[in-house]
């Protein structure tokens, strides 16, 4: 079989259920592929792994991918299994925040960094809020790996994913009625998440192109299977988790939430979504995430062949 390595953006969890399903159910095998899945982590920059040759394909968020492209690392989106964004800001009701436009001033907000901060920064730029603190801006905390800052009331709001941290907040015993949430989708600042990226030069190699086509095809098959069978997908993820730290309840719920995000996608990037992401990122005020309209940052070369 042809070997191929996939670098995930984060640890083994149902967020990447489609790939694990494809591997476990033998979809990759059917395509003649031997896929190695490398879990990520907080300090792994997936594009760096790609550039270093540690992986052939990586899962990455588009803002980070475009930023890397502007830094001179030519990576290209070849498929987009996630249609919508799962990002949101979750606030305690007692903080008194009801409207982002007026109520964030002077508050402390938890944000993920390491390349995950771009959507937040664009949003704040949209709202015209400086992020250096002070009464007229917001104070930003580099949020750690968990939801503690909210539980400990160290921040008024924290970043959460619909499928992961939000569930953890609920698990911790806080009722949904005690929370206020702002989805990036609803605020009109959503950016594309969890796409598949490769180095541009690889696309020129027909053998590689063929492998990628088969990979995307099998992966999408996995995703659609996971969408329909979230419980089974969660179980597969559990089996692949080497840390033994995940709980089946949490992964099942995550698989269900992820299914909502992958729902509208057949794997091909929709140009409109791309445009919207780029616009959001360009409108970053004084310090936009990307300075100029990217070119060649995506291609249908693979997805067209994979999905015909």
């Amino acid at each position, binding site marked *: 079989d042809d070997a191929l390595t996939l670098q995930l953006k984060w640890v083994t969890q149902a967020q990447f259920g489609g790939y694990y399903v494809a591997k476990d159910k033998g979809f990759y095998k059917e395509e003649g592929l031997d896929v190695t899945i490398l879990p990520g982590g*907080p300090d792994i920059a997936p594009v760096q792994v790609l550039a270093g040759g540690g992986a052939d394909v990586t899962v990455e968020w588009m803002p980070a991918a475009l930023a890397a492209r502007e830094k001179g*690392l030519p990576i290209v989106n070849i498929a987009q299994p996630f249609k919508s964004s799962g990002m949101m800001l979750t606030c305690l009701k007692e903080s008194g925040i009801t409207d982002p436009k007026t109520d964030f001033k002077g508050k402390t907000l938890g944000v993920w960094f390491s390349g995950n901060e771009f959507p937040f920064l664009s949003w704040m730029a949209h709202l015209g809020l400086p992020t250096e603190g002070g009464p007229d801006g917001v104070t930003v*905390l*580099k949020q750690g790996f968990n939801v503690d800052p909210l539980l400990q009331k160290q921040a008024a709001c924290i970043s959460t994913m619909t499928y992961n941290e939000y569930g953890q907040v609920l698990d911790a015993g806080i009722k949904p009625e005690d929370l206020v949430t702002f989805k990036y989708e609803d605020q009109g600042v959503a950016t594309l998440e969890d796409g598949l990226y490769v180095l541009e030069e690889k696309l020129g190699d027909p053998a590689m192109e063929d492998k990628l086509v088969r990979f995307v095809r099998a992966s999408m098959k996995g995703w659609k299977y996971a969408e329909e069978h979230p419980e089974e997908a969660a179980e597969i993820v559990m089996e692949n988790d080497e840390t033994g730290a995940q709980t089946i309840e949490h992964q099942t719920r995550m698989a269900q939430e992820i299914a909502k995000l992958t729902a509208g996608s057949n794997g091909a990037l929709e140009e409109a979504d791309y445009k919207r992401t780029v616009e959001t990122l360009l409108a970053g005020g004084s310090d936009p995430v990307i300075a100029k309209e990217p070119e060649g940052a995506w291609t249908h070369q693979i997805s067209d062949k994979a999905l015909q």
Partner: protein
Amino acid sequence: MTAALSILAVWLGAMGLNRRIARNEGPLYAIIVAAIFGITLLVLWEMVVRLYHVAPVILPAPSAIGKSLAANLPLLWGDFVQTILKGAVVGWVIGALAAILTAIAIDRSPFLQRGLLPIGNFVAALPIVGIAPIMVMWFGFDWHSKAAVVVIMVFFPILVNTVAGLKATDSLQRDLMATWSAGYWPSLLKMRLPAAMPFIFNGLKITTTLALIGAIVAEFFGSPTRGMGFRISTAVGQLNLPLVWAEIAVAALAGTLFYGIVALIERRVTFWHPSQRQ
């Protein structure tokens, strides 16, 4: 092949030069030798990156790092103040004082020593990566939690060294005190603390670098939007590797300076020890 050869040639040339200079006495020459060694390493690094076309997102060249350093001075200074002056130094001072005082306190009680030291070794072995999130949880996002991590990290190495040092008198020295019927405090202040100084400084020196690592690493687990650890983790995500390495260079410089200052004080305080007299 030629690349490898030219790299080898540079290395051999520089070391030959150093060997010649090292024959001279004096602190100035010591600095020159160290500098030549360092510069050689940097040149080799630059050569490797250029000759083998290493991708800048994997390993930037020293020249690129230098440029980034020069371009980001105010930023780097702010991070330095936040992480080193506030987090590391404050934590180190508190931790060292606490450790020395604790060592003296438990020194009077063999019971406490036998009880505390094994447990101390155990706590000292707690990896910081585990402690840091807990400290962030307890002491908040700002530098206080970083200082707390540093306190925990430096406490036990200094404690263990001090306790060992307080026992480092020889029997003749102790017998003398006994014949004078010296009380606890005089023999502590006038014999055992001075005799312990080489050990205490050993602990203090080792922990200078620990303090830096602790303060920087703790920022990975939550921080305000400044500090060296914060900058490093963010810049990696943005693939701004020259900035990452600029921060690392600042950390290395600060650490060397910190260590150097402590070593200088050690020289002053333990001038009588054979290892300082050579």
